[in-house]
């Protein structure tokens, strides 16, 4: 029988099923990454935090009494780790830890687009960045976003609308700036 619910997968992991572990990692990798990216604003660091959070949470899954609370529990762990990472990075003045080459992004073609998006994300408020990443990157529903960020669903919709408007304007202005630079050369 195919295991689909998080509760079933957690029970399977507790019984030592590595396939169930892979399914759960696949399911929650992107949400963890989005939570970390919203705080750290650096994709590679966000991936590091997502991985360490999944490792930490799933290694001590037995501590979680109610498996229905897995998602908020994992998101909380990720958020705390990202905040710790951010404060330690501030202390070491932006010096990044050495990273596993396997986790480096392979597609260099999209790096310009990526940088453009990251620059635009910098100009959003924390809340706008959270909502935009959860909705447009992770496909979270407004109800889920509202529950996680402790806001109303209407508020989540409004923030998303504003964030998208800002992002589009910022990306367009970056593109215009790029074109002007090329023409001047």
């Amino acid at each position, binding site marked *: 029988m195919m295991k689909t619910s998080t509760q079933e997968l957690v029970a399977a*992991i*507790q019984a*030592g099923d*590595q396939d169930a*572990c*892979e399914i759960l*990692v*696949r399911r929650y*990798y*992107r949400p963890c*990454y989005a939570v970390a*990216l919203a705080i750290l604003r650096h*994709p590679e660091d966000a*991936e590091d935090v*997502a*991985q360490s959070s*999944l*490792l930490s949470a*799933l*290694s*001590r*899954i*037995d*501590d979680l009494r109610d498996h229905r609370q897995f998602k908020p529990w994992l998101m909380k762990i990720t958020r705390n780790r990202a905040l710790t990472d951010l404060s330690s990075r501030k202390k070491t003045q932006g010096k990044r830890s050495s990273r596993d080459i*396997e*986790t480096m*992004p*392979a*597609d260099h073609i*999209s*790096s310009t*687009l*990526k940088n453009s*998006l*990251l620059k635009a994300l910098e100009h959003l408020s924390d809340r706008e960045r959270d909502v*935009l*990443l959860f*909705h*447009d*990157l992770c496909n979270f529903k407004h109800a889920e976003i509202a529950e996680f960020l402790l806001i109303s669903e209407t508020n989540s919709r409004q923030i998303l*609308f*504003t964030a*998208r*408007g800002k*992002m*589009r304007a910022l990306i367009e202005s970056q593109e215009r700036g790029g074109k002007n630079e090329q023409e001047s050369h």
Partner: protein
Amino acid sequence: MNKNPIDLSPLDPTRDKNRFDRTVSALAQRIMAARERSPSAVLARAFVPLMVAALLILVTAAAGTWMLEKGHTQGAQKKTTTFAQWARGKSTLNTWQEVELIRGPK
């Protein structure tokens, strides 16, 4: 216009499927290895043998207590019979029995 999602796919870590598959597989292996070493997992594995051992100790202790009590009762009955026969003049007491008789019941 703002109802359409922003294309954030360049930031998506799952975009490169092969790389993502390798990351997931390596991470799952690390998680399972860490779980094997965690104190709760060790305790979970030891739970059944520990419970069996505890049960055996309990059964042994209960059986020992029961046998001791049975031995005490039988011993007391034997002593009472011996003293009763001595009182009726039907038998004599040895030194230890005399000492016990003088000392009285505990």
